[in-house]
Each structure stands twice: as structure tokens, then as C-alpha cells.
């Protein structure tokens, strides 16, 4: 019993760290994007104020049970994704609930939140919501393909589906990172990550100019607050996952140094997404599907074939 409580306590600490880090990171990246556009940009702590503001609304409107459950599923998806990824290799606090088949479960959880949200947004009855959901799921199906191929390639390379084991085998210097031992899988995965993060050019799902904000059009108040919180956790989880899969994870004897390594690596991963986002205009849905089924999928296939040979 005590073990479970201690584990829950560690998990809570881990969640708080990733939540706060992601919120600051989202705010910082918005500021970087503003600098690219020649603006000063919002304060880096703006995401915190937005979440407090959303939760401080005095009224909220619900459209039914599923509408309530949409953000709950979404948050469950975000939490589930993060909870099964070991954030820092070798740390008791930050190993979360990692187990031998966690990679498969994490891939499932990445999809889970979107499906829950699709049901919730559908009940809102707003025509833009299902439009956003349809675009989101179509795009997701497309980028899941190169991502899944990259994961299969890594699983074949290391003969394991455990993220901890994958990180363990990348220790001992940068030349052991998947990015260098299996560059094709890294390329496919990082291209899929662009779609996963829903920044430009793959932001048509939540395009504010044509389908007001997409799936969450009708969500307000504390529902929106929950979605904003999830956005931070989910973003953090995905960056940590990609750091673990391709960039050697974060490991050091001193926990603080390991956290700093994680911060640096995830910052660079997010910076890459932001730079691509600031450089390219938005794709239409069919264009992004065509993109993901083209070069990234071929890279993924090549990575798998090379590992199987």
C-alpha cells in the first residue's frame, strides 16, 4: 500500500513538473514566433493566465453527457500518454509507470484523446466541430503511418517494445542515439511529429480563419481550461517520447542535470516544430495527407526494410 502511495506521489511530482515546464515552453515558443513576425509577443506566462481565466468563468453551457466527457477523455489521453513514458532514464521519480510494453500503450493513448474529443465535439451540434474532427482524424491517420513505421523500425532494431529499454540501449554517447544509428526512422518520426504537434503547416484542424477553432468551437469556461491543461501535458508527453525514441533520452547521475538535459532536448525538438511552423504556410487536409503518405512513409518503409535485412 505504501509503495502505491509513494508511486502516486512521484507521479504527481512528475506531472506537475511536465505541466509547468510545458506551459512555460508554450508561452516561450509563442514569444519566439512573435519575434519572427517582428512583434514583442505575449508574456511567457500567458498560458497560465489563460487557464485561470477560463476556469474563472461564472457560467458554462453543456450540450449533454458526451459533451462533458469529451475534455475528460482528452485529458485522460494526455495523462495516459505521459504516465507511461519514462521521462528521465534511471530516475525513480520520473520513471512514471513505465513497463515492458509501454510503447504500444503510449501509441494507443495518443489516438485515444482525439477519439474522445471527436465524440464530445460531435454532441455540441456545431457544424464546425465535426468538420474539424474529420480533418483532424484524416490527418492523424496519415501521420500515424510514418510514425508507426518508425516505431516498428526501432522495435526491430532493439528487439523490444519498452521505452526504458530503448533509452537504455542508446546510452554511452551521441553516436548511439537512434538519430544516428537509424537516421531513416528518425527522419520519418520527426516529420510525423510535425503533424502530431498541429502547428503550421498542419494546423488546418484548428484553423481559426475558416472553421473557428475546429473541434473545441463550443467548449468554454472550465471545459476549455481542461483542454488547455491537457494541451500542455500532451505536448510535453509527445516531446519526451520523441526525445526518448530518437535522441537518447535524458540520463545523468544527478537528477537536476538530467532534468536540464531533458529541458534542453525537448526545447530543441519544439523549436524545430516552431521554425517549420513559422516558415511554411498552412496545408489543406488533402495536401497534408498526400505529404505524409509520400516521403515520410517511404522513409519509414526504408527504415523498416533496412532493419529487417
Amino acid at each position, binding site marked *: 500500500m505504501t509503495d502505491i502511495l509513494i508511486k502516486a506521489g512521484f507521479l504527481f511530482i512528475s506531472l506537475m513538473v511536465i505541466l509547468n515546464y510545458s506551459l512555460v515552453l508554450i508561452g516561450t515558443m509563442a514569444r519566439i514566433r512573435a519575434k519572427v513576425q517582428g512583434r514583442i509577443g505575449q508574456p511567457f506566462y500567458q498560458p497560465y493566465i489563460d487557464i485561470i*481565466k477560463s476556469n474563472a468563468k*461564472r457560467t458554462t453551457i453543456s450540450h449533454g453527457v458526451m459533451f462533458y466527457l469529451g475534455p475528460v477523455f482528452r485529458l485522460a489521453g494526455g495523462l495516459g500518454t505521459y504516465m507511461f513514458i519514462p521521462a528521465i532514464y534511471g530516475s525513480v521519480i520520473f520513471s512514471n509507470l513505465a513497463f515492458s510494453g509501454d510503447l504500444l500503450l503510449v501509441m494507443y493513448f495518443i489516438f485515444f484523446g482525439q477519439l474522445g474529443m471527436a465524440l464530445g465535439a460531435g454532441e455540441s451540434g456545431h457544424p464546425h466541430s465535426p468538420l474539424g474532427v474529420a480533418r483532424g482524424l484524416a490527418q492523424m491517420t496519415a501521420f500515424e503511418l510514418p510514425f508507426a513505421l518508425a516505431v516498428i523500425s526501432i522495435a526491430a532494431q532493439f528487439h523490444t517494445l519498452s521505452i526504458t529499454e530503448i533509452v537504455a540501449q542508446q546510452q554511452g554517447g551521441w553516436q548511439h542515439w537512434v538519430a544516428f544509428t537509424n537516421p531513416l526512422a528518425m527522419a520519418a518520426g520527426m516529420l510525423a511529429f510535425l503533424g502530431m504537434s498541429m502547428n503550421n503547416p498542419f494546423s488546418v484542424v484548428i484553423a481559426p480563419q475558416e472553421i473557428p*477553432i475546429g473541434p473545441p468551437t463550443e467548449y468554454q469556461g472550465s471545459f476549455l481550461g481542461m483542454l488547455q491543461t491537457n494541451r500542455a501535458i500532451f505536448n510535453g508527453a509527445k516531446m519526451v517520447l520523441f526525445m526518448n525514441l530518437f535522441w537518447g533520452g535524458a540520463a545523468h547521475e544527478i537528477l537536476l542535470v538530467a532534468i536540464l538535459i531533458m529541458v534542453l532536448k525537448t526545447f530543441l525538438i519544439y523549436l524545430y516544430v516552431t521554425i517549420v511552423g513559422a516558415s511554411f504556410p498552412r496545408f489543406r487536409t488533402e495536401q497534408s495527407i498526400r505529404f505524409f503518405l509520400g516521403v515520410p512513409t517511404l522513409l519509414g518503409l526504408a527504415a523498416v526494410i533496412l532493419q529487417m535485412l
Partner: protein
Amino acid sequence: MSDELNKTSEWGELGAPAGTPVRNPDPRTIPGSPEADEYSVGQLRILTKELTLANEGLADEDKYLYCDQAPDVIKPFRGFWEDFLNWARAESLWILGFGTGCGAIELRPLMTSRFDMYRFGIQPRPTPRQSSVFVIGGYASVKTVKRIVRSYEQMQGPKFVVALGSCTINGGMYWDSYNTINRIDHYIPVDIYIAGCMPRPEALLAGFKKLKEMIKDGQCEGANRYAEHFEWYKGNQKRVIKDWNMPDYNW
């Protein structure tokens, strides 16, 4: 009557060019006509005896689809906690991206690098459900008032209204126009006016700054004012909006 109106209102004193087909509009939509007055008086009932919304603009078979509860006054918290929440509300102003009048053109420059409203925590939001500030961008025609009311009521409280331009204060150059309303605060509660024709983006930023101070002071309780004087606001709205075919409160 309708021929006369066609001549004077649409084509000016010279009347319509020869050969222009005469339209026969719905007499209930002609301002000042007996049918319109009768129609609007018939529609003025807002609350039933049970204090639920009458929703008389809806067809009987549609009434069950809509909520018939009038909005309530929700009292703010007291002391430090409400001050903290008001600070968050003031520092995160999401504007409803809906150009209601010509003044909306002055909102666009605020997003650009020259004025950059994002640094003050102000950003546009494309749906009324998530916005907290409604910017009335200048004159409001009767048709637009209907949309303004719908959008305003869909926003979740606390919500703030910024009316920019002289037209929102007294009608401005449209004050005797047949199809624009003069004072927007007869129809929805306004928190702050930004005068000018048109006010420059700098004036808008100054207005937003003032709005922030007012929110932090706890002076912006427009949503509660609307709920408190609901029948007065609704009566004014129904007097000008003749084709009232929506619920009495758009939850």
C-alpha cells in the same frame, strides 16, 4: 404605403428609375407601419407567469429545443479571491472576432507588429463561446443588432463590451438613419466607449488599458446588469428587431 417606402427609402427623393419592379415587402418589417407596431407589441411578452421565457418568436414545435430559463445574476466572490480572478480576466482578454461595423477595420492593425496587442494579453478568438470581450465596431444596423444580441448572449460571463466609434454612442453620422440604432447600450450593456470616427489603433489600445483597470477594480459587471434588467434590454431589442425568430435568450 409599401410603394412609397420603396421610393423614399431605397432610391431617395427622386424615386426608383422607370421600369424598376415594385417589391412588396412583408408589412410587418416596415418600420412605423401599423402591422409592424401590432407585431412588435404582440412580441413584447418576454416572461410567462411562471417566470420562464415566453419564446414567442419560435414555432410551437421548436420551442422544446431551446432553454426557457432567463439569465440569473451571479454574485462575484469577495475580497482577495475575486481580485485575483479579476486580474486573470483583465490580463487575458479574448476578443470576439466579429466585425460588426466599419470600425472593425481598426482592429486588424492591432495584431500587426506595429501595435501588437498580444503583449497586453489581448488576442482574437473566433468563437463567442470562448471570448470575453465583444468589440462593437461602429454603427450597428438593425440586422446586425440581431446578430450582436445572439453573439453577446452566447458569450459566457463575465463578459465585457467595448463600443468603438461615435456611432455606438449616439448614432454618429447615422443618427437619423432608418435602419441603424443610435445607442448600443440600450440593447446590450457597454463597459467602455472609445470615441472617434474612427478611433485610431492607439486609441483602441488606450481603451483596452482602461478596460483592464476597470475589470481589476471590479466595475465590469455587464453580464449581471444584463440579467438584472433583462426585460428592459429585451424589450428594447424586440422594439427594433421586427423579425424576431430566435429564442428570447441564446444560451
